[in-house]
């Protein structure tokens, strides 16, 4: 089984559109949307939810107003500004979005007035799509810890892929280079980076490649909308190679990608447009490079 994570560093480079197109091109892959902060893959793949599960992560402090004696110890110990001093005639309270779940206040409260229940942070789903099974998730508003949810989505995708004997796991990764991206990429067989020929795109690509190097994951780079700035595209190609990544192809600017999105379809299903052709060729080359079995006729 192979696991491929599609990331971009910079947001808005077309990562989800390309992931969905890959899903349409490969034969019964396991799909996982690890961009749990702003999960959009479902908008194109229309998953039918089979099971949903709560996502529990860590704990949260909760002050029992009955037992609190307003000594202020929790307030003085909390390093996350999560404890609010009492307003008139009131007791100390916790701001849930600021609470880190460290338990220091719970441990040191002289009255044992602070409870420490488990924290629900979102939901994750096992679904079926027209291209194969899919694991996706939704983080509650204000919930933290999307890195752990990313790990959970990947883990469940692995499990389901084994059950369903999928040969490939296709992961739509999060933007950036922080905790969620690290959680989405470590241990994967390859990272597919989609960038755009802009200064910001190049800048972010180099940070992403430093990360993949740091974790020794093979990186393949694809330049989307390359014709917006061909000389920048060339510059990116050179610096990608210098940083140990392989340039796997380029996709021309194509307004049909947005039209396909509005029609809730992948570009492959929507139209035989220039970008669809480019993506097909890229997938073919990428699958070959990674020894992934390919669909007949694609």
């Amino acid at each position: 089984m192979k696991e491929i994570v599609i990331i971009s560093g910079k947001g808005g480079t077309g990562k989800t559109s390309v992931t969905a197109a890959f899903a349409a091109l490969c034969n019964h892959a396991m799909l996982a949307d690890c961009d749990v902060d702003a999960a959009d893959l479902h908008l194109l793949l229309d998953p039918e939810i089979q099971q949903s599960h709560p996502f529990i992560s860590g704990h949260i402090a909760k002050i029992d107003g009955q037992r609190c004696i307003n000594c202020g110890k929790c307030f003085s110990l909390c390093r996350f500004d999560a404890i609010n001093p009492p307003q008139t005639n009131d007791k100390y309270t916790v701001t849930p979005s600021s609470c880190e779940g460290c338990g220091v206040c719970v441990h040191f409260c002289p009255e044992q007035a602070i409870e420490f229940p488990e924290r629900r942070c979102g939901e994750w789903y096992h679904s079926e799509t027209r291209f194969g099974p899919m694991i996706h998730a939704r983080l509650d508003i204000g919930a933290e810890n999307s890195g752990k949810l990313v790990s959970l989505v990947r883990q469940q995708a692995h499990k389901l892929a084994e059950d369903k004997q999928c040969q490939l796991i296709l992961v739509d990764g999060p933007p950036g280079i922080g905790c969620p991206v690290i959680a989405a990429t470590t241990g994967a067989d390859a990272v597919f980076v989609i960038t755009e020929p802009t200064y910001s795109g190049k800048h972010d690509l180099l940070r992403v490649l430093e990360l993949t190097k740091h974790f020794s994951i093979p990186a393949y780079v694809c330049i989307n909308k390359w014709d917006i700035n061909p000389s920048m595209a060339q510059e990116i190609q050179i610096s990608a190679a210098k940083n140990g990544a392989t340039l796997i192809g380029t996709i021309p600017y194509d307004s049909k990608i947005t039209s396909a999105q509005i029609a809730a379809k992948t570009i492959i299903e929507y139209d035989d447009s220039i970008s669809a052709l480019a993506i097909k060729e890229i997938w073919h080359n990428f699958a070959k490079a990674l020894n992934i079995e390919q669909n007949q006729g694609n």
Partner: protein
Amino acid sequence: MKIAIASGKGGTGKTTLSVALAQAADKNVQLIDCDVEEPNGHIFIDAQLDKHEDVTIPIPVLDKTLCNNCGKCGEICQFNAIVTIGDKTMIFDDMCHSCGGCILVCPQQALTEQQKTIGYLDSGSNTINCGQVHQLSFIKGSIKIGEAMSPPVIRAAKKKADQNQLTIIDCPPGTSCPMMTAVCDCDFVLLVTEPTPFGLHDLKLAVETMRCMDLPFAVIVNRDGCGDERVSEYCSAEKIPLVLKIKDDRRVATAYSRGEGLLSALPELAPKLRSLLDDISTWTKPATEGKQ
């Protein structure tokens, strides 16, 4: 006044707009790049970032000669950053959230705190003339590669700003901890989106976040015309002010790719942004009223 520029979805033009707003202002302004995982604002600003400092967090360090391997530090640690195995106590500092619990609980005073660098702040300033001459100070926060925790870097970047000056905060994408750290205690939030299904979906999440945090906000549609009308329809149904639409224009995309800002492609936008800043300051005058 602090204005945060945020969006659920990445790549909708947060940075472009933050820079343009800072350039269009008619008074001295600070621009803080809080997208610390992928900071890009500096590309569009000709500022010499001549001041450099480290962002550090405290992590525990063990004095083995004092430690009796009682294991209390490992028990209080919710993040599994300390473990005692037989006669060895080990610290994994990349898992540490700096809560200080282990230090407080150690009966031997064997743990002390040391600062560990997890990111950087670079700052500088520049004189801008986009119709109105003013000073633009720029603060860039960036996370050290391989480090996982961005909120402390975001907090440090925000703290560095002069509280009495107009401040524009370029936020990280998404709606989880980094974005919330960047927008919290701002006076107003501008949510930038694009008129596509992805844009709309992520805008809804961002709106939910704003309402949950009780922050006043408005929406800006970027690349207007490239998609459909559903974002505008959503805003009017939800009574969210849609304060600006920026036309989809290949000139902007090309200028952006060369590292040039929005105003160099569309200079006619400067007065509109200036009046938007004025409007926001009237809306936020009585700090608790006038939202939406």
